[in-house]
């Protein structure tokens, strides 16, 4: 093996033969062929060659993946299997919750999780789910991918749920490029072609859908969408990076396609959080409309992927649509009001900042307890336990923020990293719903999900597995009492109304709820 020109003298001698062989093997992949050894060495821990046998499911619709799959060998079929079934994508089981007999029947015949998980297609809330495969999909029609294709990269980068099943048709070998490697590859000049390829795939296959999912662009015609699609820049930011600076000239419209962004205004020597943006949120349209400087700054809270549309292009499209202009004016007024509120009530900003610092912004349904009215009776825990066969799914102990306590209960994250890499697919979330559930019949107790949960909200509890014939520790977590028509028992059974569940999807609402009447 020859030393790469970037390597330091003597570094090559430290390379062990196995690693050297692995590097050479990686170079057989066309897109890595011209990659330097030093870069490949850094990428190696996150490049995994994985065989799949014919018939095996490689990606499941509704699941989350932390790797792009490069199809090295074999054929895979991509299928929108859920739409095939024609089942309605509704989260909760149908139940007549208005009558006593209806609710009793519903509880007694508690719906099994399998009936409502693993659904795909269009979300219950009508959200359009982008596809992350390199082809257009049609219901009831398998699309075959050949060696050289890439799939799953959108899920890995932007943490979209996978929108279709990918099943091996023949024996298959894939190179799994895990998210850290993908991000690293995007920054390497020598791998610019790879980034270009991924970006182009995103632009041609996904961007149009994503633009249409933005309310501002929903009414645009095909031509305008195509125009924006062609001119959009796809940009990435490291955690902590300043995306735009307050006071800088407004240069572009930004749409978040992955990660979280903090919106802040200068306040004294520091800055005060006004809001945060998550996937699908956007910024810049008001400054562009008014032709003013940025009234706020945007900071990447974590790895952030953005779609950036330059000032001229945005204004050109806007000029053609008076309705859209009116919409921007209305949203400008709403945002000004909200900003004014944050300035007047610093506590709101403090709660928003706190939510960002502690990761609560990831939560789709976070359990909060108002300690100023909670009598510590533990009825919430008992109700949870009774609903789940004697094992509570949360611990009341948690972090205290002024009068609120955040118990150790699953936040039902927007981006549930716990779902990545579950070997049996036991942990899943029905598309368009909030509940991330664990199927105890298929959980093998590998602890993958509990190790991945950044908030320690998945607990392993002893359980005798009839399938395996031995005691194992199964992962358990809050499932929002899936199948219970009345909703989460912890909230319903709190005699003092102290337990509430809130979504951190709407920062303004979060700020208002938490700071309301706070001492």
């Amino acid at each position: 093996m020859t030393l790469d020109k970037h390597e330091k003298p003597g570094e090559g001698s430290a390379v062990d033969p196995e690693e050297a062989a692995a590097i050479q093997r990686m170079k057989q992949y066309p897109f890595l062929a011209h990659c330097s050894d030093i870069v490949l060495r850094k990428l190696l821990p996150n490049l995994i060659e994985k065989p799949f046998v014919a018939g095996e499911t490689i990606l499941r619709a509704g699941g989350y993946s932390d790797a792009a799959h490069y199809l090295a060998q074999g054929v895979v079929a991509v299928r929108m299997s859920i739409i095939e079934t024609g089942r309605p994508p509704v989260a909760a089981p149908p139940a007549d919750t208005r009558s006593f007999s209806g609710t009793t029947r519903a509880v007694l015949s508690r719906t099994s999780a399998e009936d409502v998980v693993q659904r795909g297609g269009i979300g219950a809330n009508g959200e359009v789910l982008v596809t992350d495969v390199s082809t257009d999909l049609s219901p009831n029609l398998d699309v075959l991918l050949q060696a050289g294709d890439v799939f799953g990269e959108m899920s890995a980068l932007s943490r979209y749920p996978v929108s279709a099943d990918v099943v091996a048709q023949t024996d298959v070998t894939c190179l799994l490029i895990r998210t850290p490697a993908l991000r690293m590859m995007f920054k390497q000049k020598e791998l610019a072609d790879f980034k270009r390829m991924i970006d182009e795939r995103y632009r041609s296959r996904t961007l149009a859908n994503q633009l249409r999912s933005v309310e501002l662009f929903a009414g645009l015609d095909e031509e305008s969408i195509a125009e924006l699609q062609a001119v959009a820049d796809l940009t990435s930011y490291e955690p902590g990076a300043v995306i735009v600076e307050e006071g800088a000239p407004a240069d572009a419209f930004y749409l978040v396609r992955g990660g979280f962004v903090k919106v802040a205004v200068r306040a004294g020597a520091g800055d005060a959080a006004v809001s945060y943006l998550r996937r699908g949120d956007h910024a810049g349209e008001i400054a562009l409309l008014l032709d003013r400087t940025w009234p706020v700054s945007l900071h990447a809270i974590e790895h952030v992927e953005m779609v950036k549309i330059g000032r001229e292009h945005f204004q050109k499209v806007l000029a053609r649509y008076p309705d859209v202009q009116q919409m921007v004016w209305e949203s400008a007024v709403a945002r000004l009001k909200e900003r004014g509120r944050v300035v007047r009530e610093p506590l709101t900003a403090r709660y928003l900042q706190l939510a960002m610092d502690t990761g609560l912004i990831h939560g789709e349904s976070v359990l909060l307890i108002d300690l100023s009215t909670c009598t510590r009776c533990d009825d919430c825990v008992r109700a949870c336990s009774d609903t789940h066969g004697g094992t509570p799914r949360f611990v009341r102990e948690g972090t205290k923020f002024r009068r609120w306590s955040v118990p150790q209960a699953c936040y039902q994250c927007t981006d549930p990293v716990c779902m990545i890499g579950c070997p049996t697919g036991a942990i899943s979330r029905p598309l368009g719903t909030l509940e991330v559930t664990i199927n105890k019949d298929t959980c093998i107790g590998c602890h993958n999900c509990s190790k991945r949960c950044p908030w320690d909200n998945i607990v392993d509890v002893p359980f005798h597995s009839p399938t395996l014939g031995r005691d194992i520790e199964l992962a358990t977590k809050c499932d929002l009492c899936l199948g219970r028509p009345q909703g989460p028992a912890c909230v319903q059974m709190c005699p003092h109304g102290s337990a509430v569940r809130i979504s951190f999807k709407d920062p303004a609402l979060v700020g208002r709820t938490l700071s309301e009447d706070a001492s």
Partner: protein
Amino acid sequence: MAPSPFAPKRPVWMRSTIAIAVLSIVVYAVWREASPWSPGGVGGLTFGTLAAAIFILDALYPLRRRLMAWPLGTAQRWLQFHLYGGVLACLFVALHTGFRVPSGAMGWSLSLLTAWATMSGLGGVWLQKYVPAKLTNDLSVEAIYERIPEIAGRLQREADSLVVGAPEVLQRFYTTTIRDDLDRLKPSWAHLGGVRAELARRVAPFQGLEAFLSPEDRVRLDGLQSIVTEKLELEVQYSLQRLLKQWVVFHVIPCMALLALLVVHIAAVLAF
């Protein structure tokens, strides 16, 4: 501005209760003007039956708390009925008797038990509103009741290890002045009044000791002081949470006795 902990959580329940109470009193007054009132008359029996029915429904509340998974409405609604229904039932008992002084042992027992059950219930409401607000606003520590002894033990061990290798003056101070406060949990109702005076008492001995210590040992002293403060907060949590759990005994016992006597009373009325 913090909301008053005593503000009704569901004002509609309070307004409805007041309306029913006023209406009942008016009905009673008009009826009494028209004809003589007796507990065994139609009006008296109506109010008596209503009171008995509410008492029985109120007694189902603890049962509801045992059947958590059942779709029987929210616990908050049950509790609101338990509270406001209980108050109305007390009024209905008074209307049933025509506001007359009871006669006989049974009458006295029923009246006294009704008063005790109602007053202890209202005391519980006050405690359940006052204590959580106190715990949240006055203390920085929050702990689950059952875990407090364990956490307190851990604090004590932490304090013990902090003084290992400390100068003699600090060790003596710890042994003679501090150790006793850390030794065990001393629940006290006095904490209901506030924690500041007790905190000042426990922290006072720390003042003035700094002058005798090196900068390194002052850090130990600061550590000890925060342990003492935390321990006191835990003690307050323990005392007040215990109170929240124990007051119910004063309510449940008279309620059970009242129910038992009520059965006897109804049986006696039906029989004779």
